[in-house]
């Protein structure tokens, strides 16, 4: 399929496919990503959605989607997508689907399923070369159940199950790296606050077949603790501090689509969110703050 060109923000779709008024929280960074991606994916998309926040988007008789949507158990969305893809292919071969009904099967999950519980199903779907696009909105915790720690929760963040003084001891899992190691057709990181970068990447993913990942940072007002109006600003800071690198894996190479220069200190990002407040009050936790900065510095040192 030919890839549409998005040279500037003026080229972005002006009409939005995703309906307004969903049951998502105000300022949801995941919803922002789904809305932007859906405009590029088109209304022929079939979503296969594992348990998570986005399963609450359709509340009968209202749905923000123009097309189909299927729920699967939390660990199984890529397996559900396998069935949908195969069934569509069978019906297409039998002539039951018009050539124009080019249905794109898109797995939609949060980080709980994407980084954790569903990873085995994802790995197997990539092994089988399944023709699907995986859209993961990463809000760095189990947002739907009250922001417990997930494998995507960053070092130092406080969650409902990690209330220790220093926050989460572990490191955020590198899901992009895991996908790249499996050599998919395409993989990219995006954030809703960079809609042009996002649209280009979703279009590039859509123009290819096989396993493809769009991994989106999804700032979460309720889970991270910030005002809903700050979602876009926090997305910008995630990129400009280098915490959320925007990159893509295409034709066997990882390229960064944005190199923040100069990089802002990570504290500019961390101090905007209540989940990191314990790192600043009552007094700064210099050790953890330094660890986070060092980790970001080491990443970009390796890139540059």
């Amino acid at each position, binding site marked *: 399929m030919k890839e549409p060109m998005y040279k500037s923000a003026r080229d972005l779709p002006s009409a939005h496919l995703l309906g307004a008024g969903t049951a998502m929280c105000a300022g949801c960074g995941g919803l922002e990503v789904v809305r932007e991606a859906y405009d590029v994916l088109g209304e022929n998309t079939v979503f296969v959605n594992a*348990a998570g926040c986005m399963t609450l988007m359709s509340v009968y008789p209202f749905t923000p989607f123009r097309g189909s949507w299927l729920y699967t*158990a939390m*660990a199984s969305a890529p397996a559900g997508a396998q069935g949908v893809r195969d069934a569509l292919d069978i019906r297409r071969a039998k002539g039951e689907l018009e050539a124009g009904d080019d249905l794109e099967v898109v797995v939609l999950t949060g980080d709980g399923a994407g980084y954790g*519980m569903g990873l085995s199903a994802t790995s197997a779907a990539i092994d089988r070369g399944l023709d699907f696009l995986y859209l993961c909105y990463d809000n760095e915790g189990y947002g739907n*159940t009250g922001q*417990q720690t997930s494998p995507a929760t960053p070092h130092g963040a406080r969650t*409902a199950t990690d*209330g220790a003084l220093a926050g989460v001891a572990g490191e955020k899992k590198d899901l992009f790296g895991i996908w790249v190691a499996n050599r998919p057709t395409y993989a990219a990181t995006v954030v809703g606050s960079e809609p042009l970068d996002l649209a280009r990447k979703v279009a590039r993913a859509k123009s290819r077949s096989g396993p493809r990942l769009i991994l989106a940072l999804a700032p979460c007002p309720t889970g991270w603790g910030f005002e809903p109006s700050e979602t876009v600003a926090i997305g910008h800071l995630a990129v400009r501090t280098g915490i959320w690198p925007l990159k893509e894996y295409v034709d066997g190479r990882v390229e960064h689509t944005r190199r923040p220069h100069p990089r802002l200190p990570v504290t500019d990002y961390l101090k905007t969110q209540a989940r990191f407040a314990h790192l600043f009050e009552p007094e700064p936790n210099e050790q953890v703050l330094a660890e986070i900065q060092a980790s970001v510095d080491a990443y970009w040192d390796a890139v540059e």
Partner: protein
Amino acid sequence: MTAGMANLHGNHACALGAIAAGCRFFAGYPITPSSEIAERMSRELPLVGGTFVQMEDEIASMAAVLGASAGGVKSMTATSGPGFSLKQENIGLASMAEIPCVIANVMRGGPSTGMPTRPAQSDIMQARWGSHGDHPLIALAPASVKEIHDQTIRAFNLSERYRVPVMVLFDQVIAHLLEPIELPAAGSLDLVERRWANGDDGYQPYAAGADGIPAMTRPGDGHRTHTTGLTHAEDGFPTQDPDTVTRVMDRLLGKLDQHGQDIEAFECHDTKDAEVLVVAYGISARAARRAVRQARERGIAAGLFRPITLWPFPEQALRTAADQARSVLVPEMNAGQLVLEVERICRDEVRVAGLNRVDGQPIEPSQIARRIEEMAADD
């Protein structure tokens, strides 16, 4: 938490009961409406030298609980319907390998995702038969915040004593209900500790004495442990010899039978002369209690039998309670599950009927009262 009066949610009472019972390991996964049990455990366990671990999924949570228990530490997990489904294979392993463990299941509307924030009592049969094959287990159904606390403690005691998985089944209403309860002082509880093998050379891990319960061993105590889900003989190694399998399975499946008096807990209210008997458990039993009281005020000989132990079902106790009954009403927040067991147990001439709600709302006392009056009029 210190001893004394406290206002607690059911989920927090479950966590504190577990700590009081000696639970020092919790593995879980977030799921509504049970997540507060995990969250509370994540705060409480480190204070008593225990470990909280959030696992990658429900299957892994159950496996970690079995690992910790086999390793010698009292262990539990908590979940709700969909997670309970995923745990079932490992629950069967717990029954088969006789690994003590406690599973709290905060029931919500189902099937599938159902209604995560609404109550139900629809996992009663899954609790009993969710795992494949015949297998021993115990399921308890507390009806108040206080009882969640106490039955969680009891769940650990039963599990450690009889080496079976014990489920604590309650629903979203009691899980999130705030009630005052008195927390016991440390050291004031009768806690059961697992019987450990004494280090004899001739140790047979699944050879039991008269009580049917083998002593357990753990890594580091001198015995080499071998714990399998395969059908095994007394020596713990797999067997398919029909005579041996019959012998060991008879013991496994029968080991709870001789301890019914200790395991089967229940409450009777006005059952002695009850012509209309209500059999209700959990939150529905609280509505039933009021309905029965109202019926008595109107001159109807109504009574309430409240099983606290659902599995094994207190069969003889129900027979006694239903002795004078002409009709039995079983209100449940499901399409009719425990009613099947009640029907099986009651005399043929007793009319057994269900009163069911599957709309995510608790059954109201007035609904039960109305049915009691109808049944009394029909008799």
